[in-house]
């Protein structure tokens, strides 16, 4: 995995391409205040990675251990911290990362936590069709049959039933960067991404699409 950015989902809108006149639905992601907090090396930590933080936190809100960790690496306290596995030669700790590392047209993956839906039925959770609403039907959105009779005499594993839905880690692969705006430190990413507005998302170069030519 290569170095990506943390961001906050701001919401969705659409933008027009002036050449073709096409409207593209985009999600706006705020990636300001990304800072490298720690560089992990094979010698010391057994693997190479960088720890990246986003969102300023008041110094009084963190404990002494965390204060020391941030201070040691010339970083300011951050709300959210995530790690990116990188090859060697990462930028030094304390470096501010910005939106320049993503170019227009680049393919990215976005990782986030989906919105919570609580305890959901099968119609919402698994797109079951449900049963008829009228003509004396009294089982509108119920599960229906969940198995056979004597054979197999039990319910199959992974039978889809009602239960908790949402608040899952989800990765959306191969989304395109429509624009990267350095002045606001925002990314415009084509399509939708997981999570509520204000939610933390991780944007990384796409794993299954080639990266753009070296900058």
């Amino acid at each position, binding site marked *: 995995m290569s170095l990506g950015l943390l961001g906050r989902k*701001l*919401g969705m*809108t*659409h*933008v*027009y*391409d*002036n050449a*073709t*006149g096409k*409207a593209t639905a985009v999600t*706006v992601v*705020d990636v300001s205040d990304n800072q490298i907090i720690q560089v992990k090396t094979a010698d010391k930590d057994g693997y190479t990675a960088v720890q990246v933080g986003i969102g300023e936190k008041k110094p009084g809100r963190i404990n002494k251990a965390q204060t020391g960790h941030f201070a040691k690496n010339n970083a300011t306290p951050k709300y959210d911290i995530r790690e990116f596995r990188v090859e060697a030669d990462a930028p030094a700790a304390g470096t501010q990362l910005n939106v320049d590392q993503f170019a227009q047209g680049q393919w990215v993956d976005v990782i986030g936590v989906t919105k919570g839906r609580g305890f959901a039925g099968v119609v919402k959770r698994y797109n079951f069709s449900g049963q008829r609403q009228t003509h004396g039907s009294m089982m509108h959105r119920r599960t229906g049959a969940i198995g056979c009779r004597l054979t197999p005499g039990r319910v199959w594993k992974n039978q889809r039933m009602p239960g908790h839905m949402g608040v899952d880690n989800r990765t959306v692969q191969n989304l395109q960067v429509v624009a990267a705006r350095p002045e*606001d430190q*925002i990314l*415009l990413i084509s399509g939708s991404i997981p999570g509520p507005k204000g939610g933390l998302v991780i944007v990384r170069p796409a794993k299954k699409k080639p990266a753009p030519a070296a900058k």
Partner: protein
Amino acid sequence: MNKLEKIQNEQVKPDIKGFNVGDTVKVHTRVIEGGKERIQIFAGIVLDIKGTGVGKSFTVRKVSYGEGVERVFPFYTPRIARVEVTKRGSVRRARLNYLRSRVGKNATNVKEAASARDVANA
């Protein structure tokens, strides 16, 4: 939410305004065919203007060979070159859905031609 609003507001251009519900307009649309761009005109009555911000849109209705044709245009799309007002209408509704049920001459003609006062208010 300011950064999001900024993107949206950037796309909101004031220049396309100047028509209202009930006006008869010619919408000059850019059509790209085989790499070449030309202007195609869609002429009719403005049925409604909906929405706000980048999502704002308007509907134009015309009767073509006896068949009603409606087209919804996004207000700020670059595919519209300009909107030309051929006749000012004076209407008492925000949405002229009642025109859809009209047949024959009534279908397009019933817009009252505007008085000078209506144009000034528009």
